[in-house]
């Protein structure tokens, strides 16, 4: 299948300008995403320092193994995404590009699946803020009224992150279809790069979420 020439939009002078505009545009967009997540990180910072015990107690309800798993899965998906971009840039053939994109998609899917399980566990243990909120086995000496702060932020931050993952999965599907049609060449593979940047950013957010949400005090309540 012959590869397509660069798809040059009419308002750009040349492909170089278009590519640089796309790249800068994606980076500026990621900057807005950083500030978007940043607001919730600020709220987290404020309340963790105000209620360290409540946060530690609430955090201990999380399954660290699943969290670790998810972290490693996402790191793996970043690797496969980077390799997908590399294959497109190096002209390694569309089969490899598609393969790595599919691997990324699968790993992303695993992440979301584990997340779904975690959310479900929270739901049945009444740890979701709202009408049904009533965490079980709460240590007596720790103020439970602040537990909803932690869980609210937990669902807010991981929920925001997960919705970004879902969008990423959608973007990957699009890329896979287009890559399979041979649309991406060493001369033009900008969409793959741009989705790659987005995917890595979402990975970075999780790199911070994992220790902040899961590892506050893994030994809490033991011995």
């Amino acid at each position, binding site marked *: 299948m012959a590869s397509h020439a660069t798809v040059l939009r009419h308002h750009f002078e040349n492909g170089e300008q278009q590519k640089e505009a796309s790249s800068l545009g994606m980076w500026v967009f990621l900057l807005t995403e950083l500030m978007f997540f940043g607001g919730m990180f600020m709220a987290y910072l404020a309340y963790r320092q105000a209620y360290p015990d409540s946060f530690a107690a609430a955090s201990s309800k999380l399954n660290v193994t699943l969290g670790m798993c998810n972290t490693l899965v996402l790191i793996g998906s970043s690797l496969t995404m980077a390799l997908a971009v590399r294959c497109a840039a190096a002209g390694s053939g569309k089969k490899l590009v598609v393969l790595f994109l599919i691997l990324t998609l699968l790993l992303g899917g695993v992440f979301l699946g584990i997340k779904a399980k975690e959310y479900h566990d929270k739901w049945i243990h009444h740890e979701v803020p709202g009408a049904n909120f009533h965490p079980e086995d709460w240590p007596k000496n720790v103020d439970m009224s602040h537990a909803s702060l932690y869980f*609210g932020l937990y669902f807010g931050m991981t929920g925001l992150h997960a919705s970004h993952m879902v969008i990423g999965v959608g973007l990957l599907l699009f890329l896979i279809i287009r890559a399979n049609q041979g649309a991406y060449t060493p001369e033009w593979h900008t969409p793959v790069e741009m989705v790659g940047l987005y995917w890595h950013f979402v990975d970075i957010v999780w790199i911070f979420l994992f220790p902040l949400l899961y590892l506050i005090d893994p030994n809490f309540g033991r011995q």
Partner: protein
Amino acid sequence: MLTATRAPERPSSYLTDGYGLKSWLLTSDHKRIAILYLISITFFFFIGGIFAALIRLELATPAGDLLESDVYNKMFTMHGIVMIFFFLIPSIPATLGNFLIPEMIGAKDLAFPRINLLSWYIYVFGGIFVVYVLLTGGVDTGWTFYTPFSTSYSNTKVMAAAVGIFIAGFSSILTGLNFIVTIHRMRAPGLSWFRLPLFVWAHYATSMIQILGTPVVAVTILLVAMERGLHIGIFDPALGGDPVLFQHLFWFYSHPAVYIMILPSMGVISEIISTFTRRRPFGYTFIAFSSVAIAVFGFLVWGHHLFVSSQSVYAGMVFSILSYVVAIPSAIKVFNWTATMYKGSVELSTPMLYAIGFIGLFTIGGLTGLFLACLGMDVHLTDTYFVVAHFHYVMVGGAIMGYLAGLHFWWPKMTGRMYPVLWSKIAGVIIFLGFNLTFFPQFILGFLGMPRRYHVYPPEFQVYNVLSSAGATVLGLGYLIPFIYFMWSLKYGKPAGPNPWGATGLEWQIPSPPPTENFEVTPVVTVEAYEYHAQEVVEVG
């Protein structure tokens, strides 16, 4: 001369390039998108104006006789939300910025034309939520949505209003993103940064703020929605939440937001002053850098809205000092504009009248901000009419005058028509007088202690309130006049040539109205911006 037996054909332009609703609603032409925005924001300006009229009508008498207290709360809330998020913030960037920036840098369009159109649709979608709120009872929290009232106690359409503003925020973000990439990557050959018109510098700085600040208020609104829906306690003291945290997150954006509203106006003023004094702006580099300085420093002062909130006094002191610092770049601009006019060849065209009005009114507004930046004074003046007067001087006397100045300056370029000059000057004077009559008495009221957001007040304040309401009537009528003659000019206005003002700048080298692709051939820039001196030499020789 040809004897016309039929009307002369209008040359093809972006206005005639495709007819029908679809060609407008699915356009990717930045000029058409600018017109779409112009229509939408004018619509919201009228809505915001109706709320203002009701407020001033109620305040003409000391008793709460026109509106119930609950209803009055909704009036000032809706006035603020509509005017700030749906009029002022998009006003100049989405209309004049969208229209002119590609032309000023010699480009055929913005970097991302389809994202530009998307930003308009997002804005309209957010606006639909606001109209829904309007029709179903309004919201009464103040445009500032302070918690825990907005999250736990208000019985009004807080969620819908929050969703509308959240959505509209993304429109602002996309506009800013588009401008930043366009200005970095699509300048014509030879157009270095320091040859750019100051209008472009102003919009670059504005876009920085839109990118860095809006996401924070977006996530804050999301948290308010979560709190209202799920009672997680994030801003509710009863559950351990901190209402002041809300204020920090809210004002981190909302203070820089006021610079989103004023910086583009300042860019307009720079263009107009230089054109109608026939001079390069004095201290061009200082004006350019001061725009960026305002954008950066504007992010460091938000705590001056929290002086009496129980924020740490030490933090208050730091915010106070920084608030004085942020006034400096604005002052630099005012000095430079004034110096440009000194011994310049001043022509008192309509845009120039608005620009001069801007300088005076913005200066008053800015100086009164310094009163409020002083911790001790703010304890007495905060939440009084002094604050209301201050921000209306900068937002209306500043930003809106700048917007009108820009409309009057670039109307011939955008539409190919001139408006009636005498009426435009009459309207300008009426607006200036009406504005001062409305808002100057409010400084006095605030100083005397009348609180803001109250519709019942002691009888001794009535005389100033009546003056203010009278002024508002004059101001409202003043705003109607340009609306009428601009509409009139579309059909009956004298056709304008490419450069009716004799201004420099690439946008004046192309026809009025411009063709869809702006430039047939990408221009190559070899001269500095504002080369008025060279023009004069050519004419004399």
